[in-house]
């Protein structure tokens, strides 16, 4: 018995913002597409609670599962949540009918959050701490960015996706790799004035290398993934990672064009999007790699089997 992904669902409410929106700060559609590969993204209304968005993604999974009492843990991953006390996870659990005997907590590891949350959830399952674990990434990055900042306003976006983890006999054990370097904290950080500072060239270079190295590790240790999903940070970064991982011979997912960078939510959103589009089979082995502020990086290879009818 090993843990894997058995269901996935998304919530992407909010309005679609196209590149024309940014002409007011001097950016053109051509420039944004060239610089980031992004054409449209979603922004949530400022007043929408993230718990409600997360519940929208988790609810269909709980409904399909049919026995919410067997979900022993809910991890809500978010770097954009402003809510510290109480956390978001407890409200999500209530909204989707979990508990009361459920371990719930919030997690923040910036853009690496989903990979780290996934590793945590899989470890809980494998250790017997929970029969089933929900991991949900929910982000409203539009509330964090300075919307007049030409470097970041058009990149970041909002979104939410969740996966259900369970132990199953047919699953091979997951593998992960992770790392951090606090000396690089200045590369990406929230500014005192509000907004996000990015050292674009350094982040580009390091993100490509770290994600490519993490992917290589996953292929060198344990069963090879059948698909690679990198953190959808920027289309140029994704194509850079693709260039370093082409020799691995598996599909590499780039779905940033109509999603933007939703921080920790990009990987489950892209994974779900590929399933929904029929670009991935309903079972396989996901290789997810991420890089983000901290700096932190990592990857996880995990089996998945989601009934085709339940692909979002």
């Amino acid at each position, binding site marked *: 018995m090993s843990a894997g992904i058995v269901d996935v669902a998304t919530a992407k409410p909010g309005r679609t913002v196209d590149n024309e929106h940014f002409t007011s700060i001097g950016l053109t559609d051509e420039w944004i597409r*060239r*610089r980031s590969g992004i054409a449209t993204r979603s922004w949530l209304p400022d007043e929408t609670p993230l718990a409600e968005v997360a519940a929208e993604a988790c609810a269909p999974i709980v409904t399909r599962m049919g026995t919410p009492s067997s979900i022993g843990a809910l991890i809500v991953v978010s770097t954009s949540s402003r809510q510290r006390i109480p956390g978001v996870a407890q409200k999500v659990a209530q909204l989707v009918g979990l508990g009361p005997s459920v371990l719930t907590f919030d997690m923040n590891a910036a853009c690496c959050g989903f990979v780290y949350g996934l590793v945590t959830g899989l470890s809980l399952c494998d250790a017997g701490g929970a029969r089933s674990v929900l991991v949900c990434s929910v982000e409203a990055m539009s509330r964090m960015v300075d919307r007049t900042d030409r470097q970041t306003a058009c990149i970041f976006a909002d979104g939410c996706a969740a996966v259900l983890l369970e132990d199953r006999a047919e699953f091979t054990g997951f593998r992960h790799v992770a790392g951090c370097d606090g000396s690089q904290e200045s590369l990406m950080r929230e500014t005192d004035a509000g907004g996000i500072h990015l050292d*674009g*060239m350094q982040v*580009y*270079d390091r993100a*490509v290398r770290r994600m490519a190295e993490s992917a290589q590790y996953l292929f060198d240790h344990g069963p090879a993934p059948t698909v690679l999903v990198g953190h959808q940070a920027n289309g*140029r970064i994704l194509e*850079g990672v693709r260039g370093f991982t082409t020799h691995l011979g598996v599909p590499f997912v780039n779905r940033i064009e109509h999603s933007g960078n939703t921080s920790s939510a990009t990987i489950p959103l892209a994974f779900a999007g590929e399933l929904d589009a029929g670009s991935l089979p309903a079972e396989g082995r996901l290789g997810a790699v991420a890089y983000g502020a901290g700096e932190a990086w990592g990857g996880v290879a995990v089996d998945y089997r989601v009934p085709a009818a339940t692909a979002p």
Partner: protein
Amino acid sequence: MSDIEGRIADTMLAKLRQRDPSLGPDDLTRPIADLDLDSLDLVELHQQLERELQVKGDLRETAGFAFLDDFSTYFVKLASGE
């Protein structure tokens, strides 16, 4: 032109032609600011030269280069072990 210089020139020209296929070897001497290259193109060029020559450069140095010739000089030194 040495073999290393030739490989560097080929790599830089390929990068330039991604943006403008009409560019030729003479354009390698133009200031970077006059070429249709953005800052991420320069990171990509840095990484491509590293891979081509199997060396590790310092992006903090190359990010400030004003001419493609500066890349050539820098990577020739690296590849030569200087």
